[in-house]
């Protein structure tokens, strides 16, 4: 008789029914195997199936699913194994993660345990993202999306978390922001939710940052820091502070930004890890940005050069640093050096097939031409090229600060060389960008 002695474990009746149907067995067959009545099976499937471990083993044997979690306790333990695998993935213990995957991958054979199967798939997507296999991640997410209406809160959390990450990497900050905000909602709704999800908060702030909305970035981060205090934000503090510092510069609070960057630099240099070059490079770049903001070209170049030595050649951040170096060098009137550094950007961006910096290197060429010999027909062509070809493309890519810098140069040029209507157009463009940065969300573009 079922559940007659030792209620050692509980199996969801609903899950039992799903498995029975999936294995194409009748209630009568199961009842016969377990030596009980069909009515008892019916009752068990309607509610909870209480059984001891021996019975559980027999049920699993009957369905030929001995390695698969069935009871609530087994599901809980299996979930813990999935989390353990997730943490191996997150901590980049690749060999261990691959070995451990073999233990948990059996779950995909069991369609009735969809929550667990999907959780497994979500961590597979995270693995693809960390390995930079973006196409695979996209494909897996597309598959998972079909199950979105039936997903529990935890799966929805991971789905939107991964989907937001992919969109952020693919440079769709507005779409990524929507997904991360949904993840935040589902994350708070799931069982055992963390009190504070620092990584997700940072990602959301990064989207605001990418959308060039400095006020929202600052408000969001400061709110998180106020609400959760030093202890909870400790692990993410360096990332929070870098975002805050750059956003402060974007709104003109340069001194506050410099103080924060100094703290960041001390912390990053204190962290004894061979991979901290990227973070230190970014902090140095942002110091350069602060000086450039104040028109201190030489100091800016000094910091940017230091940053370049810390960044990996050809990477997006390296190209950005080089872009700023060329700009500052041209502003100082050192055209041969500027052109020399520009050649390097051209070469690297072509090699990396980085369309953004291929366009920006062309922009720099025009900009240098404009600074070097403004009174020539070629300079006029350069100015028109930037106005008609570069500005719209930068706008599409939310590159508002670069647009503003170019608009300022173009406005000065057109005004000086007798083209007031063009100057007016350029100024209108920069006004609309400033308004957008100050007052609007990126998706209201």
């Amino acid at each position, binding site marked *: 008789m079922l559940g007659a002695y030792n209620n050692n474990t509980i199996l969801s009746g609903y899950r039992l029914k799903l498995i029975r149907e999936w294995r194409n067995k009748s209630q009568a067959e199961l009842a016969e195997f377990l030596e009980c009545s069909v009515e008892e099976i019916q009752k068990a499937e309607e509610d909870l199936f209480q059984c001891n471990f021996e019975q559980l083993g027999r049920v699993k044997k009957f369905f030929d699913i001995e390695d698969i979690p069935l009871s609530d306790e087994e599901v809980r333990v299996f979930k813990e194994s999935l989390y*353990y695998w*997730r*943490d191996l993935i*997150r901590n980049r213990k690749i060999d261990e993660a691959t070995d451990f995957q073999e233990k948990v991958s059996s779950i995909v054979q069991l369609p009735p345990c969809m929550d667990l199967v999907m959780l497994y798939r979500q961590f597979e997507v*995270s693995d693809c993202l*960390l390995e930079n296999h973006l196409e695979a991640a996209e494909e897996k997410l597309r598959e998972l999306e079909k199950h979105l209406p039936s997903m529990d809160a935890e799966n929805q959390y991971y789905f939107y978390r991964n989907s937001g*990450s992919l969109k*952020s*990497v693919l440079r769709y900050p507005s779409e990524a922001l929507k997904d991360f905000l949904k993840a935040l909602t589902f994350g708070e709704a799931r069982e055992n939710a*963390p009190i504070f*999800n*620092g*990584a*997700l908060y*940072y*990602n959301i702030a*990064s989207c605001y940052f*990418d959308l060039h909305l400095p006020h929202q970035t600052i408000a969001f981060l400061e709110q998180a820091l106020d609400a959760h205090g030093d202890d909870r934000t*400790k*692990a993410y*503090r*360096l*990332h929070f502070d*870098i*975002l805050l*510092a*750059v956003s402060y510069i*974007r*709104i*003109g609070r340069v001194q506050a930004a410099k103080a924060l960057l100094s703290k960041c630099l001390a912390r*990053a240099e204190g*962290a004894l*890890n061979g991979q*901290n070059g*990227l*973070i230190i490079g*970014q902090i140095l*770049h*942002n110091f350069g*940005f602060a000086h450039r*903001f104040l028109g201190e070209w030489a100091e*800016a170049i000094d910091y940017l050069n230091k940053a370049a030595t810390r960044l990996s050649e050809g990477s997006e*951040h390296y190209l*950005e*640093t080089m872009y*700023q170096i060329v700009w500052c060098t041209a502003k100082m009137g050192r055209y041969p050096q500027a052109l020399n550094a520009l050649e390097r950007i051209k070469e690297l961006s072509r090699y990396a097939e980085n369309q953004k910096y291929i366009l920006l290197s062309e922009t720099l060429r025009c900009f240098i031409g404009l600074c070097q010999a403004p009174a020539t027909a070629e300079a006029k062509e350069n100015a028109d090229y930037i106005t008609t070809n570069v500005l719209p493309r930068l706008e599409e890519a939310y*590159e*508002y600060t670069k647009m503003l*810098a170019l*608009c*300022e140069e173009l406005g*000065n040029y057109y*005004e000086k060389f007798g083209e*007031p*209507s063009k*100057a*007016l157009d350029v*100024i209108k463009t920069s006004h609309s960008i*400033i308004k957008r*940065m100050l007052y609007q969300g990126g998706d209201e573009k």
Partner: protein
Amino acid sequence: MKRKLIAIFLGVSMVLCVCTPVIADGVRPPIFFMDGDDAPSHLGGADDSFEQQLL
């Protein structure tokens, strides 16, 4: 008159444009693909070592 108006508008606009604080840009560290603070305790959860792994 029209020219004068344009000239005034340009003058005011240029002041605004030149005073625009943002003329360059900074960079930010990459996003986190996974969380650290909901890790089971046997992996340490959120602590300094997690941050150091990210650096």
